């Protein structure tokens, strides 16, 4: 197993991971949090869920409200200060923590938490360097949706705009799942239109973008849209259901954890 290569085994310590379950996953998609937890537990990590966690501050900061984001950011640091790594199944939240998160003073505690916070795909791909998911099988046609925070913010994959060598961390992981088949939409990394408060502030454009995204995957022959970004899935699913689409939505943590559908 890949974990043999990691330092904490050599030192005899178990890696302590703080699981961050963002507010909307907590409330609406607990199965994504559970799948993330179960998946991490398969790798002999000490996974803990700090009980007083709420959010990373992104909703306020994305609206320009830095002052209103400060207390939430402070709480985030207090909750996650004591772990080796913080792992979260949501790209946009991690992007906020890592690249923005400056409503509060950048003390050593704050910068440490920021640099050890990872999105699940990166954590599996770059830190644990997982080579197999023998328990996972997903014999379906899937379209992969890279949320923009993950794609362009966390560099999960090479975005289509750049003339750089192709790579895709989520694809690398999903390819290890038995029976999975990929389809490619015509606009693979066009934004789906969620955008946090954009989804209500620019309701018409947001919904149109979501409809277009689902339609593009449908045309490509996908049965499932898989993503590391729950908020994108929530938005796309809302659009699909309203339109009577048969498209199904699943988080990458569920697929990698061996969800059977």
């Amino acid at each position, binding site marked *: 197993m890949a974990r043999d290569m990691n330092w904490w085994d050599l030192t005899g310590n*178990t890696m302590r991971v703080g699981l961050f*379950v963002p*507010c909307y*996953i*907590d*409330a*609406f*998609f*607990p*199965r994504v*949090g*559970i799948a993330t*937890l*179960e998946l991490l*537990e398969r790798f002999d990590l000490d996974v803990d*869920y700090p*009980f007083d966690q*709420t959010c990373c501050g992104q*909703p*306020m*900061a*994305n*609206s*320009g*409200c830095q*002052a209103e*984001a*400060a*207390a939430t950011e402070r*709480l985030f640091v207090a909750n996650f200060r004591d772990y080796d790594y913080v792992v979260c199944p949501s790209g946009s939240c991690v992007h906020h923590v890592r690249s*923005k998160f400056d409503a509060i003073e950048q003390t050593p505690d704050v910068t440490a938490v920021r640099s050890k916070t990872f999105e699940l795909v990166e954590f599996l791909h770059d830190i644990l360097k997982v080579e197999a998911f023998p328990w996972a099988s997903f014999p379906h046609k899937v379209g992969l949706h890279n949320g*923009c925070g993950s794609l*362009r913010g966390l560099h999960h994959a090479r*975005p289509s*705009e750049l*003339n*750089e060598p192709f790579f895709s961390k989520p694809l690398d992981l999903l390819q290890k799942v038995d029976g999975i088949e990929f389809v490619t939409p015509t*606009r693979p*990394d*066009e*934004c789906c*239109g969620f*955008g*946090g*408060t*954009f*989804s*209500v*502030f*620019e309701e*018409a*454009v947001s919904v*149109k*973008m*979501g409809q*277009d995204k689902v339609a593009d995957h449908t045309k490509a022959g996908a049965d499932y849209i898989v993503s590391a970004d729950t908020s994108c899935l929530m*938005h796309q699913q*809302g*659009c699909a259901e*309203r339109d009577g689409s048969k498209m199904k939505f699943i988080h990458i943590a569920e697929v990698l954890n061996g969800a059977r559908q």
Partner: protein
Amino acid sequence: MNETPHSPGEARPRAAREAQPKGAADPGKGRVDHAEAAKRFIAAPEHLKFHDERLWDIRMKRDRQMHAIPEWEELRRLASAIKDHTLSHLDTYLEQFEAAAKANGVHVHWAKDGAEHNAIVLGLLRDHGAKTLIKSKSMLTEECGMRQALVEAGIEITETDLGERIQQLDAEAPSHIVMPAVHKLRRDVSDVFARTLGTEQGNDDIHYLAESQRMTTRPLILEADAGMTGGNFIIAETGAVVVCTNEGNADLSANTPKLHIVSVGIEKLLPRTSDLGVFIRLLSRSALGSPITQYTSHFRSPRAGAEMHIVLVDNGRSTRLGMPEFWTSLKCIRCGACMNTCPVYRRSGGLSYGFTYAGPIGLVIDPTFDKHKFSSLPFASTLNGSCTNVCPVKINLHEQIYAWRAVMAENHELPFAKKTAMAAAGALLASPRLFRAAIATADQALLSLPRFAQYNALNAWGKGRENPRGAGQTFHAWWAKNRAGKAKAAAPGKQPS
């Protein structure tokens, strides 16, 4: 000739045709409402589909051109570095440019704002007894409101760029900095030409329309008293002005009348002619996905018997240069690639932004012209970052859009409802106890979570989307039940129950 299918022989009633959506309403002293205009654009599905697909197609062509150039990313880095350097030594290079241009026999004028620019141009026209002006496309003259100012002073203006001419005839602003009429369907153009040029009603054949415009515009060009062009680049070491067009219309505007006026922003400087190659290679590939524009014209000195004047315009640029978070927006070469790739721009149309500059670059520079009027523009973005990646001069557009949001909040430019909602969300999310109570049930969570809290009275989320359903229990509750005492567990890594 109708684009929409209908039974043969049946004349489709004109009234049933989808009208071209109009742009953002004039806000008076208020804020431009992009969301409202975007909603009307989306309510016109034929226009929306055409606009989105046309611009996406150009983005795809741009990608193909990019992949044909292995050193593409190196070119972008170089272009960005040259612009960074030039903008940090702008005073020196401007003086060098002025001296070189004067030595070439060109008159150089300095305009601190739009009004001064318009007055200088009008003064030149009056000095030469000029009553008619032909011009090529220039976003700067749009920005300065020149057309209206000159028309009020009795000058007759003819735009020679086809798209810009269409917009002039329709009394509408350009919707795209490279393709001013890209939001119009063929039949919209046909209607405008039938009304203003007397072309055949209902004939929307592209060749017929283009030819008709040509035939009506050519005589005006030949007779015009003065010609005006913009400038894509101006070169400090030589004093030359470089104009890139596909229609050759800048050459007509510059070379036909005896007076050639160039209006150009002070940020368009490049130090040397040898720098130009980097930008010419990037410009048209980024803009239209073509390797180069049909014409790249260098104007250096007046023709024999003619005069050449260059008006160097500030109009807020030197103030922008002093803004730590936003000064690099001055690197923009106006290629429009950020607009073509922007999923919001493609689905809302350039006119919904209420100013000359639309799309990502508009969100960044429009507020520098009027912070209050354009205060909602930085929110017309999902911050997806595609714009930043296509920008040939590597402007971090989506980060600047994000930074503007904080500026707007600090300047009390957020709508009251939004500010209140964010203050409430901030208080809620900072308190585990309040937060837990608020999301104890999914129904409650729908009302409380920040993404829904805002405008939930209008149910903006649920208008076109289903709400996420409750899952019975939160993850938090699940953890309490299934992993109680976990923190103290001695043997981690056991298989979940």
